[in-house]
C-alpha cells in the first residue's frame, strides 16, 4: 500500500511537472509567431522580368476573408502585390507568372491563415521568377506548405507553417533565393528543403518538431546561418541524394546555428530518405562535398552532434546512381561548440564506440569513405572515424556574407528577331512551309498577300477568318503574347527559304 501511494504521488508530481513545463515552455498551445517584416514598394518601374522578388511596381490587391487569393493571382501582372488580410482561407494558390508578391497582413497578432483542412495538397505553388511569399500562416495541407519549381530570385520569409504535410518550404530548381525568419513545426519530412537549387541563403529560421529541420539537397552555394533547429529527428542536413537529375551537392556553409536536442522519434514516411535518420542527429552530411561547418552550437543531440556519412553507412537503401559520387569529400570542420551529444546512440554507433574505447558521448562521427576532409582542434570533441581527417589550414568563412547573387538572375535577352524565328519555326512551321503546301498556304503566298503589312498578319493570326475554301480555317494564335505575335508577323515577311 505504501509503495502504491508513493507511486501515486510520484505520478502526480510527474504529471504536474509536465503540465507546468507545457505552460511555461510548451509550444503546443501558443506557438510564437515570427516577427513581421515589411518591405518597401519601389518607385522605379524597371523591366519587371529582371526584378528581384519583392519589388512592387504595379497594383495592390487587397484580399479579405471570403475572397479568393487565386482570383487575384489570375488578374495580377508582374510587379503586382497581393495582400492577404487576417482570416482563414482554404485554397491552393499557384503562381505561374513572374514577379508576384504575396504578403500576409498581420494585424494585432491576427494572421491570415491558409488552412488545407487535410484535404488540399499544397498551400502555395509557384513556377514564376521573382516570387515573394511572406507573412502567411499555413496549416493542415497534405503536400507542401510553399513549393517552387524552377522559379529564380525567390524570397520566402516570415511564414509560420504548422503541421502541414511533407515539406514546409521547398524551393526546387531555383537559383538565387532567400528563405528567412520562418517558423516550421510538425512536418513529416524536411521543414525547409532546398532541393536542386543554387545560390540560396537560409537564415534566422526556427525549425522544431519535424523529422528534418533544414535539408540542403543536391544544391550548390547554400549558406545556412543563424537558424534554430531543435527537437527534430535531425537538425540540419546536407545531402547528395542519388537518382536525381542534379548530381552534385557542394559548397554549403553551415554556420552560427543553434542545433539543440534533436531527439524526436522519427515519424517520416516509410521509404523516404529521412526515415533513415536516427533520432538524436544534430548535423548530418551525406555524400555532399565542400561543406563547411563553423561556429555552431550543437548540444544535446543523443545520437551524435555531427554525422558525416557515405550512402552505405547512412543505410538509405536507395538504388545506386552511377553518376552520383557516394562519398563526402573536402569537408571543413571549423570550431564549433559541442557538448552533451551522443549520450544514447543507435546500435551501429554503439558498436563503433566500443571498438574505440572512447569515453561516453559522441560529438562527431565520420563513417564510410570520403577524401580531402579536415578538422580544426579535433581534441576538443569526442569523435569516431576522424583519423583520416587532416588538420585544416587557418581558415574561416567570414568573407562569405551571402550566397545570393549580387543581381537577380536575368532572363535571356531575346531579340524580336530571335523570338520571331523561334515562333515561326517552333510553331507555324507545323502547317506552313516556304513554298510547298502543307496544312496551310505556303509562306511565299502569304508574303505576296501581306507585302509590307506585318500588322495584317498580326491581326489575322490573332483572330483568323476563313479566307480560302481550299484550306482549313486557321486556329487563333492569341495564346502567344502580343509581343511574340508582332515578332513573328515581322519575321514571316523576311523568310526566304
Amino acid at each position: 500500500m505504501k509503495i502504491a501511494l508513493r507511486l501515486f504521488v510520484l505520478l502526480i508530481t510527474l504529471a504536474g511537472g509536465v503540465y507546468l513545463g507545457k505552460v511555461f515552455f510548451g509550444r503546443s498551445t501558443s506557438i510564437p509567431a515570427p516577427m513581421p517584416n515589411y518591405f518597401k514598394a519601389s518607385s522605379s518601374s524597371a523591366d519587371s522580368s529582371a526584378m528581384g522578388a519583392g519589388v512592387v511596381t504595379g497594383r495592390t490587391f487587397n484580399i479579405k476573408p471570403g475572397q479568393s487569393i487565386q482570383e487575384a493571382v489570375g488578374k495580377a501582372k508582374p510587379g503586382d502585390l497581393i495582400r492577404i488580410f487576417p482570416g482563414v482561407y482554404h485554397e491552393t494558390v499557384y503562381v505561374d507568372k513572374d514577379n508576384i508578391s504575396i504578403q500576409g497582413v498581420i494585424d494585432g497578432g491576427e494572421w491570415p491563415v491558409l488552412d488545407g483542412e487535410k484535404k488540399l495538397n499544397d498551400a502555395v505553388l509557384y513556377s514564376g521568377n521573382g516570387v515573394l511569399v511572406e507573412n502567411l500562416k499555413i496549416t493542415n495541407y497534405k503536400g507542401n506548405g510553399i513549393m517552387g519549381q524552377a522559379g529564380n530570385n525567390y524570397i520566402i520569409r516570415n511564414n509560420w507553417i504548422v503541421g502541414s504535410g511533407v515539406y514546409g518550404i521547398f524551393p526546387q530548381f531555383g537559383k538565387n533565393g532567400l528563405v528567412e525568419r520562418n517558423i516550421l513545426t510538425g512536418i513529416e519530412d524536411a521543414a525547409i528543403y532546398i532541393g536542386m537549387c543554387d545560390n540560396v541563403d537560409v537564415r534566422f529560421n526556427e525549425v522544431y518538431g519535424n523529422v528534418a529541420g533544414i535539408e540542403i539537397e543536391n544544391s550548390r552555394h547554400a549558406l545556412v546561418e543563424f537558424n534554430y533547429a531543435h527537437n527534430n529527428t535531425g537538425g540540419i542536413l546536407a545531402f547528395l541524394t542519388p537518382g536525381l537529375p542534379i548530381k552534385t551537392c557542394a559548397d554549403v556553409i553551415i554556420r552560427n546555428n543553434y542545433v539543440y536536442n534533436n531527439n524526436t522519434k522519427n515519424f517520416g514516411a516509410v521509404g523516404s530518405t529521412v526515415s533513415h535518420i536516427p533520432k538524436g542527429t544534430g548535423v548530418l552530411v551525406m555524400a555532399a562535398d565542400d561543406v563547411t561547418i563553423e561556429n555552431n552550437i550543437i548540444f544535446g543531440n543523443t545520437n551524435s552532434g555531427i554525422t558525416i556519412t557515405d550512402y552505405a553507412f547512412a543505410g538509405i537503401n536507395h538504388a545506386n546512381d552511377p553518376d552520383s559520387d557516394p562519398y563526402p569529400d573536402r569537408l571543413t570542420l571549423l570550431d564549433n561548440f559541442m557538448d552533451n551529444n551522443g549520450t544514447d546512440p543507435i546500435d551501429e554507433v554503439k558498436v563503433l564506440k566500443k571498438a574505440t574505447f572512447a569515453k561516453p558521448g559522441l560529438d562527431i562521427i565520420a563513417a564510410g569513405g570520403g577524401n580531402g576532409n579536415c578538422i580544426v582542434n579535433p581534441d576538443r570533441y569526442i569523435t569516431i572515424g576522424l583519423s583520416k581527417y587532416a588538420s585544416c589550414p587557418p581558415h574561416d568563412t567570414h568573407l562569405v556574407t551571402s550566397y545570393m547573387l549580387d543581381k537577380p538572375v536575368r532572363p535571356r535577352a531575346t531579340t524580336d528577331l530571335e523570338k520571331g524565328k523561334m515562333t515561326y519555326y517552333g510553331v507555324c512551321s507545323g502547317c506552313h512551309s516556304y513554298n510547298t503546301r502543307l496544312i496551310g498556304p505556303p509562306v511565299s503566298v502569304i508574303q505576296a498577300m501581306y507585302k509590307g503589312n506585318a500588322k495584317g498578319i498580326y491581326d489575322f493570326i490573332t483572330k483568323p477568318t476563313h479566307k480560302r475554301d481550299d484550306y482549313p480555317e486557321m486556329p487563333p494564335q492569341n495564346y502567344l503574347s502580343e509581343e511574340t505575335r508582332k515578332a513573328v508577323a515581322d519575321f514571316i515577311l523576311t523568310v526566304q527559304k
Partner: protein
Amino acid sequence: MKQFIFIASFLLLLISGWRYMASDHQPQFATLCSTCPPGFELDDKNRCRLRSLYQMYENKDGNNPGVGGLKTALPAVRDGFTPQQIDLGRYLFFDPVLSADGTVSCASCHQPDKGFSDGLRTSVGITHIPLKRAAPSLWNVAFLKNFFWDARATSLEEQIAGPLYAADEMGTTRDQLLKTLNGIEAYRDLFRQAFPQKANTPIELNEVYTCIAAFEATLISLNSRYDQYAHGYANALNKNEIEGLNIFRSFVARCTECHTPPLFTNQQVAVIGLAEPDHTFDEGAAKTFNDPTLKGAFKVPSLRNAARTAPYTHSGRFEKLEDMIAFYTQGRGHEVPPTEKLRIHWHIWEPHLRHDEIDRIADFISALTDESFKPQIPEAVPSGIKLKKEPLTHSLSLK
C-alpha cells in the same frame, strides 16, 4: 447505299492503283527533300537547327536546362543533320527491307498514329512472338541521354542497332543489311545525295544509323496546350486540366519529381515496383549498370503524347492512363513479389489519391498531346516493298 460504297471503293482502288503505278514509274524519292521538317531552321551549312519557344529560357546564368518548371530551357538537343539525311532516314524508318524477311520496319513498332509506339503490351518482331518489353515512344528522343527501358544505349545510333540485329525483332545482320541496301539502286542513289562528299563508295552502316537518327531526332512535340500555358497563356488549359497540373506537381502525387518538365522525364532510372504479367521478374537496369541495387529499375518515360501510347509501362501493364496513375496510390511495393527485395524509389509512397484526382491527372496528361509535327508516312519506299496500310502488329489485339 451499298452501290455507292461499292463504286466509292472501286474508285479509291483505281486511284490508289494509279498512284502506286505512277510512283513506281517515277519514284518521288528520286530527289531527297532539301528543306527541314517542321520545327527546324535550315542554316547556311545545310543543317537543320531546332527552333522552339523554350529557347527563350536558355540562360547560362540561370537554373539548369532540361529539368525544372514551366519556363525551363530544354536539355541539349541532337540536331544539325541535313534535310537530305532526315528525309532518307524517313524512308529507311518506314522500309521493311531493313528486317531479315522484309516484313518489319522501325515503324511497325513505332507507329506515327500511336504516339510512335504500337498499342501492344509488348511489341512483336519477325518471329511474331511477343517480346520482353513494350515499344517506347519516339517523340522528343532528340533530347534523351539514354535509350531502351533499361537505359543500355547512350545514343540514338547505338539504340538503332539494337532492334535491327535482335533475332526476335528485325532479325537482320550487319552483312545482310549492307548487302540488301547496296543491292537497291534507289538507295545507292539516295545515300549519295545524303552524303554528297563521299565518292562512289558502298553504303556504310554508320550512314544508315545517322539517317535514321536524323529522322527520329525531328519528332518534336512541344506545342501542346500545356506548352501554351507554360509560355504564359493562362486560358490554354481548362479548369480540370489546371487542377490536374496542380495535383501532378503537388507533393502528394509527386508526379513531377520524376516526370519533370519540360520533357516530363528527369531522364533517370527508377524502381517503382511493378510486377510482371507473367510472373517472371525483369531486372531492368541492374544488368545495364551491373548493379543489383538497380534491380527492377527502368527509365522514366516522357509523358508527352502519353495519351496516344497506351498500354503503359515497360511490360504494357496498364491500358488506361487512369489505371497507370492508380498504381501509384495503391501502396509502396504492393506489387513486388515476396521473393524480391527491391530498392523502391523514395517518392513511391501512399498518396491516397481520390478517384477524381486520378481523373484530373489524366486530364492534364492528355493536355500534353501535340502531334502537329507528325511526319508524313512515305507513299512508297525505295525497296519497292508495298507498305501495308495496317502494319503487321495491328492484327494482334491487346487482349
